[in-house]
């Protein structure tokens, strides 16, 4: 299958699959918590039926917990929807802050698992770029995945962005000095080429920069 898709297509399918699996895992966790809270309410009702007085504060805590999980699921599903729609247009103008927010939100569970904190800085002004949204999400994920590995357990990866003369720059800082794996890999380099982007790794400064050129988003036009 990978042969027919080509390396970029296969990378994209793998990225989509990995994110979908993570989202489904998060939703399962939300459902499990809702299920347990509903079960607890049932337990309390059964106990009340046997004459044990109901504690209103306890009930309120359960209700608050349920509402919190519904809100959590709403955020997950809204982000999943934005991610799914990123393949609607092969190339278009996007707000980089919005697109980066989608990727950072998708990465949160991976960050939790590695005990890494993600800190997305708000852009001082909207950063609109003409790009290939899904490919850019994939490349941003590759950068973030590498940055989280480099930050290590207990680290914080700060993500900032700024407009440049012909595009935009995304900076990932807080990378530790652990022995780096090869970055970008051959596939990641192909992805960057397809976006006319390039990465700059500053090992001493603990920073990774992704530089996007809006003048030639496809890199071959």
């Amino acid at each position, binding site marked *: 299958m990978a042969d027919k898709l080509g390396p970029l297509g296969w990378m994209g399918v793998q990225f989509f699959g990995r994110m979908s699996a993570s989202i*489904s*895992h*998060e939703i399962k966790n939300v459902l*499990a918590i809702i*299920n*347990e809270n509903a*079960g607890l309410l049932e*337990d309390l009702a059964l106990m009340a039926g046997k004459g044990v007085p109901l504690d209103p504060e306890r009930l309120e805590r359960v209700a608050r917990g349920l509402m919190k*999980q519904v809100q959590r699921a709403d955020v997950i599903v809204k982000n999943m929807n934005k991610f799914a729609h990123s393949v609607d247009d092969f190339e278009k103008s996007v707000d980089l802050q919005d697109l980066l927010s989608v990727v950072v939100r998708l990465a949160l569970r991976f960050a939790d698992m590695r*005990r890494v904190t993600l800190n997305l800085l708000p852009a001082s002004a909207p950063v609109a770029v003409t790009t290939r949204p899904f490919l850019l999400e994939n490349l941003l994920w590759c950068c973030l995945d590498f940055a989280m590995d480099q930050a290590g357990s207990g680290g914080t990866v700060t993500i900032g962005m700024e407009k440049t003369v012909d595009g935009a720059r995304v900076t990932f800082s807080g990378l530790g000095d652990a022995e780096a794996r090869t970055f970008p890999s051959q596939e990641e380099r192909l992805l960057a080429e397809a976006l006319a982007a390039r990465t700059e790794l500053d090992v001493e400064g603990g920073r990774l920069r992704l530089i996007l050129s809006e003048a030639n988003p496809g890199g071959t036009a």
Partner: protein
Amino acid sequence: MHILLVDDEEEFVVTVAERLNMRGIDADWATNAEDALAMARAKHYDLAVLDVKLPRTSGLELREWLARDNPGMKFIFLTGHGSAEDYRVGAAGAAHYLGKPVSLQVLIAKMNETLGIKDG
């Protein structure tokens, strides 16, 4: 029956422990492998219910560490993962693999079965 529940979703694991305690089952909880190992050093547990994916490690690794220090401890995996995990979990020697969400009745039945306790 002394049960150790380990899951990184605190609200989930706290509520399951509370509901088990309401049924007279002694259940403690932890949200990471380090705490779980420390708890198992301080107290005897007959069975551990582990999430497959934990911060910085996996439930499969935690099972190995717990089993090494606590011969005779039994294990059940509880996870939100899909079918791909089934094979790995099955190979890891757990008595049962349960997908989230799971009813407490099913969980208790599996715990009893694993420990050779007759229901009721």
